[in-house]
């Protein structure tokens, strides 16, 4: 162990944190925006459409992200029409390719997560909303989605952590985020231990912060906790709690 080198790495590597965060945040945002309509189609859409969305998520979730990244970055160049089109400016750039791959990947994962959340919204809630005269879009926006989002939050936290870790694949298409910087440093210093351990520590702190943030969000958005229940009880103390009601002994 060379502590001097580790210190060097600790000074150099944080300059890759920016790119890692950009890749993660933009892909998560794009993926989320794409996944909301897809999740609704997957959960409540017509069978044909639902199956189409399932095919998309199945293929994306069933293949390694590395293959997808190489398909976009190296593979698309084989088609002459792609190279001639205006999209070539985007598809030629490793950053855009990485962003596109990560977004599509995140969208597939988030769609499945949100779909499970949407399906576990109690039927009575939507029926109550219908009986209040809300339209279908209003029900989706005001009732179904907020409840489903809250249900899917723990699983979505895993997806956020997975995306931070997945962004390390960008180093394979020459991008210099944390892993890319670390690999470059290793190739000049020949000290893999020190530098990769420092890089790992940086990733660990990023994922820990993400986990803490998601837990905070979960606590903020959670309902049916003690504080709210207590407030309710203060307003209407007459009815006993469900758990306390005594059942006749057999």
């Amino acid at each position, binding site marked *: 162990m060379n502590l001097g080198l580790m210190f060097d790495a600790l000074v150099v590597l944080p300059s890759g944190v920016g790119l890692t965060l950009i890749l993660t945040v933009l892909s998560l945002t794009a993926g989320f925006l794409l996944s909301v309509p897809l999740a609704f189609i997957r959960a409540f859409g017509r069978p044909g459409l639902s199956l189409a969305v399932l095919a998309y998520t199945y*293929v994306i979730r069933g293949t*390694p992200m*590395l293959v997808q990244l*190489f398909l976009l970055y190296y593979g698309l160049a084989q088609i002459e029409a792609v190279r001639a089109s205006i999209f070539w400016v985007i598809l030629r750039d490793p950053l855009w390719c990485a962003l596109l791959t990560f977004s599509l990947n995140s969208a597939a994962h988030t769609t499945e997560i949100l779909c499970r959340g949407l399906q576990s919204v109690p039927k009575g809630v939507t029926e109550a909303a219908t009986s209040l005269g809300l339209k279908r879009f209003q029900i989706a926006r005001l009732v179904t989605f907020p409840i489903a989002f809250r249900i899917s939050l723990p699983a979505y936290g895993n997806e956020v952590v997975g995306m931070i870790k997945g962004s*390390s694949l960008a*180093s394979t298409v020459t991008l210099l985020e944390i892993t890319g910087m670390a690999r470059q440093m*290793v190739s000049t210093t020949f000290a*893999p231990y020190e530098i990769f351990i420092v*890089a790992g520590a940086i990733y660990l702190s990023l*994922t820990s912060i993400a986990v803490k943030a998601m837990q905070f969000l979960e606590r903020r958005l959670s309902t049916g906790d003690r504080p709210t229940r207590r407030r309710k009880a203060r307003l209407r103390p007459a009815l006993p709690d469900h758990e306390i009601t005594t059942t006749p002994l057999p």
Partner: protein
Amino acid sequence: MGGFTTQFAVALTVTISLAFVSGCLGTAFGLFLAISKGTAQPRLNSVVTAYTTVVRGVPELLIILLIYFGGTTLASKIAGRYVEVNAFTAGVIALSVVFSGYATEVFRGAIAAVPAGQTEAAKSLGLNAWQRWVFIIGPQMLRLALPAYGNLWISLFKDTALVSIVGLTDIMRVAYVGAGSLRAPLTFYLAAAALYLSLTTVTLLSIQLAERRYPALGR
């Protein structure tokens, strides 16, 4: 595709054996850690927690790079001359570490989900600790863990692609070489994607079969 079909066939066996060996090692180690976390003293408990936190919070690619390049440096230092760690060995170690980190959490959750009354009943029947594990907690815990455990295998198959970056000739590596030499990257990466998709599909189907055969008890 030319002569790459046979290469893909060989690479497929490499990928499968890499996944299989690291999956089995990871399962054994994860089971061991989960059991020791459930029973042992708090000191060991926090060590296991630290292990799973670190493994699950660091990119798999970084762990593979660390073990491959770091392992080479370490082995060279010990041997006194340049020794290169085999990419397959490095891959097995790295993927076992990753798998065990996740498996520990899965098994720990499943152990905690077995009702405490089961252990108490087994104790009252006079079974010793070993018998309680093998006959009472083990079978119930494995059934509870099965769905999450199956997902681990699927992501393990996908993670094997990362070992190609340190030079293992698996599916991904053959696709990379073929794409370069025949100048047909789209064809080769699509072939690789299809192979990986069939591997994960087979895994998914066998897990579903196992789930139907061994459903969680009492649910």
